[in-house]
C-alpha cells in the first residue's frame, strides 16, 4: 500500500506549484488554472485522510470542493471573457482601475 506521506507530499507539491503560479503568472487563464491546481491538491490530501481513517466525510468534502470549483470556473471564465472584451488583454496587471 502506498503510504500516506506520499499522498501528502504530492498534495503539498501540487499546492506549492499552484501558489507560485498564482504569484508569478500574469495571464489570467494561467492564474485560473493555478487556483484549480491548489483546490485539487487539497482534494488529494482529503481523500488520503478519508482512506486512512475509513471515514467518508473527507470524500464528501471533495465533492463539495468540486462543486464549488465548477461554479467558480463558470463565473471566473465569464469574468475573463468580459475582461477580454473590454480590454483586449489577459494580463491581470492591466486591470488596475482601483489603483490610485
Amino acid at each position, binding site marked *: 500500500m502506498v503510504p500516506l506521506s506520499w499522498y501528502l507530499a504530492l498534495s503539498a507539491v501540487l499546492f506549492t506549484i499552484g*501558489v507560485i503560479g*498564482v*504569484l*508569478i503568472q500574469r495571464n489570467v487563464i494561467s492564474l485560473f488554472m493555478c487556483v484549480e491546481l491548489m483546490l485539487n491538491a487539497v482534494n488529494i490530501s482529503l481523500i488520503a485522510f478519508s482512506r486512512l481513517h475509513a471515514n467518508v466525510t473527507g470524500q464528501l468534502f471533495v465533492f463539495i470542493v468540486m462543486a464549488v470549483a465548477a461554479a467558480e470556473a463558470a463565473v471566473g471564465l465569464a469574468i475573463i471573457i468580459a475582461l477580454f472584451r473590454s480590454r483586449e488583454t489577459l494580463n*491581470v*496587471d492591466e486591470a*488596475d482601475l*482601483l*489603483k*490610485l
Partner: protein
Amino acid sequence: MLKWIVFAPLIGAIINGLFGRRFLAHFGQKATEKLVGFIACASVGVSAALAGMVFLTRLLPLPKGERRITEHFFTWLKVGSFQADFAYLLDPLSGVYILFITGVGLLIHIYAAGYMHGDPGYYRFFCYLNLFMFMMLTLVLADNLLLLFVGWEGVGLCSYLLIGYYIKWDVAGSAAKKAFVMNRIGDFGFMIATFLVFTTFGTISFVTKNINGQEVQSFLAQVASSPTVAAGTLTAIALLFFVGATGKSAQIPLFTWLPDAMAGPTPVSALIHAATMVTAGVYLVARCSPVYVKAPTAMAVVAVIGAATAIFAATIGIAQNDIKKVLAYSTVSQLGYMFLACGVGAFVAGIFHVMTHAFFKALLFLGSGSVIHGMNNEQDMRRMGGLKKYMQITHATMFVGWLAISGFPLMSGFFSKDEILWRTWSTEALPHNWGRALWVVGAITAVITAVYMTRLMVMTFWGRERFTEARDDHHAGAGHASGGHGGGHGHHGRPHESGWLMTVPLIILAVLSIFGGYVGVPAALSMGRPNYFEDFLKPSVAQLEHATATHAAAPPAALMAQSEPHGATPAPESHGAGATAGATAGATAGATAQTAHEGGHDVETERLFTAISSVLALLGLAFGLVFFKRNPLWRAPKLLEDKYRVDEFYDATVVGPVENLSRDGLWKVVDVKIIDGLVNGVARLFAALAGALRYTQTGFARNYAAVILLGAIIVIGYFIVSVFGIRINI
C-alpha cells in the same frame, strides 16, 4: 390669578409672533394692523385689569403687615439644598410696580398702535412689546433672585430687540449691541451677588421656604435678624447688586447705552427706556433693602453714584438738540434721583419717584413721539419751534409733563422730588455733612432739570417757526429716525396733530402726571395725616436703624417685623370686621409715634424745605423761560454737547484695548497660531502617516496574494513550532 397677569401678554406675543406674518400675507397691511394691535392691546389690557383687581380686592383688604400673596407653580430647580421655585410674590412693592407697568404699558400699547401705523414690521413690534411686558412682570413678581434674573435678562433681550427694531439702520443695530453688552457687565455683578447670597444664607428666595423639610427663612429676613453675617459680605452683596442696577438703570459708569437706545421707536423709549425697565434697578435695590441698611458703605456708594449721575446727566441734557436725547438724559438724571433716595435710606421715596416718573416721563416721551410723528420724523429741536399752533393736544399734555418733571408745586413730580430732597437732607444713613452735600447736588439738579425741560418746550412749541427754513444748515450729527417708517425725509408738510390713538393716552397720562403724586403727600403737608404711599410700602422695604435713637433695643425688633410680617406687626391681631379699623388705628398710632419721635421742629423744617424746592423749581422755570425765549438756539459749551466725551473715553480705555487685544492677541496669535496650528498639525500628522502607508497599496492583486501567503506561512509556521512542536517533544 397672578399667573394670568403675567402670562396674558405672553399669549399676545406668541399669537402675534407666530401668526403675524400670515395675517399680513392674508389680510394685508391695514387689517393686520387692526388685528395685531387689538391682540396686543387686549392682552395687556387683560393683564392690567387683573392687576388692578388683584391689587384692590385681594392685596389691599389684607391686614397691613401681612400683605403678601404668593403663588407657587412648580419647583424649577432643586439641587441639594438649593431651590429655585417658579413662584410669584405680590406684596406692596411689587403691587405698585405691576400697577404702573400694566397701566402705563397699556396706554403705550394703544399709543404705539397709532404710532407704528404703516410699518411693515407691525406684528414683530407688538410681539416684542408684549414679550417685554411678560418679562417685566416676571421680574417684579418673582419670589426669588433666580426667577427675577430670568425677567431681568428677558427685559434686556426685549430691549435689545426693540432698540434694534429698525433692522436696516446701522445706528440702531450698534445701539442695540451697546445696550446689550453694557447690561451684561452689570449682570455679571448681579450673578456674583446671587451666588454670594446663596453661599451666605442658603436661600435666594424672598419668602420663607420649606427646603428638604426644613423651614428656611428668606435671606432678607435672615439679614435683618441675624447679626452674625460679616459686614464685609453684606457690603459685597449690596455693591454687586448695585453693579447690576447701574447696568439696567443706566447709572455711572454704565449709563451711555441709554441715550443711544433712543434709536428704537419712540413708544419703546417711553415704555422700556423711561417708564419701566430702567427702574428695575431701583426695584432690585428696594427689594434687597434689608441688605442695604446693614451695609452703610454700600448705601453711601449708591447715594453718591445716584447724585453724581443725576447732575452729570442733567448738565448733558441741557446741551442736546435731539428732542429724544434730551429726554433720555433726563431719564438718566431722574434715575439718579431714585438711587439717591435709596442710598439715603428713603426707599419708599425712591419707589414713589419711580411711579411718578413713569407717568410724566412716559407722557413726555409719547408727546415727543407725537411731535416727531407730526413733523414727519424730524427730531432736531432746532428745526421745530412754534408747534403749539399745530399740535394743541400734544402741547397741552407736554405742558403738564413739563411742569411735573420740573417739580412745579402740587404736580406729581413735585411731591416725589421734594420727598427725596428732604430725605437726603435729613438722612441718618450717612454722616450729616454728606447728606447736606448730596442735597446741594440734588437741588442744583432740580434747577437744571427745570431749565432743560423749559428749553425743550421753548424750542419745540413756542417761539418762531423754524421748520420751514432753508435746510442747508443740515447738521451731520443730528439724529433722524430714518429707519423703517415713513421715509419721506427732506420736504416737510405742515406739522399736524396725531390721531386719537395717540392723543388719548397722552391725555390720560397727563391726568396721572397731575394727580399721581397725591397718593404720597407727606405728613408735613397734609396736616398730620400719614403719608399713605409710605404707609402702604413700609412692610416691603427695610427702614434705617435709628443710630441716634434713644431706645437701642427697639430697632432690630422693628426691622424684623418689617422684613418678615409673620413676626410682631404693629397692627393689633384683630380679624373680621374690626380688621380694617384696627389696621388704620395701628397705622395712625405708628405715624403719630414717629412724628412725636422726630420732634415737632422737623415738620417745620420739612415744610421749609418744601418751600425751598418749590422756589428752586420756579427759579429754574423762570430762568429757562427768560433765557431760552430770547435765544432758543443758544449753543451750549462744546464739552456738554459732546456729553463730556464719555463715549470717547470708554472707546480709548476699554473698547479700543479690548479690540486691539482681540485682534492682535487673541485672533492673530492665539487663534491663528496656536489653535489653528494645533488642529492643522494633527491633520498634517495623519496625512504624513497615510502617505507612508499608501505604498503598501500597490493595486496588483498578486501582491496582495503574496501577502496572504506570507501571513498563512507565518500562522502555520507558528502552529508547527508551538503546537506540533510540543507534541513531538511528548
